[in-house]
């Protein structure tokens, strides 16, 4: 099972230039989505047949804080002039949407909030997600982003066979 993480406070722009470089929408994303996007790139960049629509891969993202870091930005803008660009990222699941769009993954995308980082719990929930008969693999990530330069991440690419 492949696993990657991004150290807290690392320059996400540098990572983007290193691993991607040709997806300018990256710069519109909130930090949570940037992290999810980059973690996924690190995991699947060498996969064959990338960017071919597939329904058999799920995106399962876990955190404690959800999108609270971006919520604070929107709440600030709201007092002056509410920003639609910030508002669309005030949903914890936009990160999994960004990953799905980039990779053309039309399978399940689900976002869960847990009280704390708990790998046993995460794998229980992932195993349950594989009850969907269509799902053969999953991008699984813990992305707990407390501010634009503080986070804890861990991401894995898992096959159904590893979950049985």
């Amino acid at each position: 099972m492949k696993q990657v993480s991004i150290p807290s406070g690392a320059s996400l722009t540098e990572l983007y230039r290193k691993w991607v470089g040709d997806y300018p929408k990256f710069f519109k994303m909130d930090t949570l989505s940037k992290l999810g996007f980059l973690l996924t790139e690190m995991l699947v960049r060498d996969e064959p047949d990338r960017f071919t629509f597939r329904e058999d891969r799920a995106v399962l993202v876990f955190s404690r804080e959800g999108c609270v870091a971006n919520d604070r930005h929107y709440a600030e803008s709201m007092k002056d002039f509410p920003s639609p660009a910030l508002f669309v990222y005030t949903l914890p699941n936009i990160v999994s949407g960004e990953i799905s769009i980039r990779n053309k993954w039309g399978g399940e995308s689900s976002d869960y909030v847990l009280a704390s980082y708990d790998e046993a719990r995460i794998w229980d929930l992932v195993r349950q997600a594989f009850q969907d008969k269509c799902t053969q693999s999953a991008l699984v990530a813990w992305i707990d982003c407390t501010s634009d330069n503080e986070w804890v991440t861990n991401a894995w690419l898992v096959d159904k066979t590893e979950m049985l």
Partner: protein
Amino acid sequence: MTKVYCIGCGLVTPVGNAPSEVLSAVRAGKSAFRLYDGWPEPYYASLLDREGFEGPSFFDHIALQAARTAVQEAGIDASGARVGLVLSTIKGNIEKIDTDDVSLAAAAETLAQGLGVKTKPVVVSNACISGLAALLQGVRMIRSGAYDHIIVVGAEVQSRFIVTGFQSLKALSLNPCKPFDADRDGLNVGEAAAAMVLSAHPVPFDPHPVSENYFSGRDPKNQFPETSTEPALQGDPKNQFSETSTEPALQGDPKNQFPETSTKPALQGDPKNQFPETSTKPAPVIPSEASVSPWEIVDGAVRNDANHISGPSRTGEGSYNALRYVLEGVSAEELAFVNVHGTATRYNDQMEAIALNRAGLQEVPVNALKGIFGHTMGAAGILESIVSMKACDAGVVLPTQGFSQMGVEPAVNVSAQERKTDKKAFVKLLSGFGGVNGALLFRKGGAR
């Protein structure tokens, strides 16, 4: 595969809390919409009455109220080792972002404590499909074999945060929303809480167990032996939702609203009111098949459009794929209706029409409930599923408040007026930001 049943429901809505009351409101087209002062723009919404509420969090309050009602109806012990909790919400306590921990994890913890749930809760926050995804999560947790019962709770309260955000996207209508209508011009936000208890066991609370045939649904007269009238009254969901037990919930002292052992009011009502369809005599009570055989959530799916974070697919990709998954082996003829998302935005309703047509459901009656409740976000999937189950039990396809002229192409069979149905299966459909779409198939036990 383990069957998963809905054995308890709880509602907190602006048009009532007792399911019978809520169903009557929907059938009569009665809503609680009005224009509210905004920040500064006004907005048209269906909000709960907060008068008299003094607790620390209205969100926590309504979530707990709906959950407790469902737990009480199910007759389960929420503190059991094999009882789980799934919370569905999008923004939880966001209105307190300047002062409090507004993480959804904190909201789930508060709810778990209030209910006495001992296992660790999980929050499913999948934008507007959260409630549906949470129900699916509950189904999966039971099928994992680790749980007997899952309490699934959806709740949303509106705030400056959410309203100004939707206004910034120009998504709100200043008039009553018109799902699927040619003149639809946006959504209305709404507040509600809704809860279901899902179970691997169709018999939640049965102090005097009888034979397995009891719930087979073949002959109602044989299902309730004369001697079992009392326990049946205690365990039957319909009895526990007496009008009097839920109405005062939002008024007065919150402490009085959640009596820890409040099964009493449910048993006090007039038996005639408890079984209006089947019983004219107080005893013995012979309930209809509908009241003994619980609803089953057969399966569900969540699919992503992989297209855009805030606009639905023009081909209805994710919604169609979710429908295709849940309807595998199911005939469209079996469905009483599809209860759609129907937000009344141009793009959502058009997308759903395409998905429904692609799935071969263009002839199946379609209805949307946003014209009564508004968009209740994290509560929507659970609230609209509960109302749909109750409608099916009453033998009706509910009307789509606000719809008058077909405004989608290709057309779908929108149920403008109430219709009769004797079918006992339906699909709940939702879509949301992040490109997510979900479908759930509900079926009454034994139907098919």
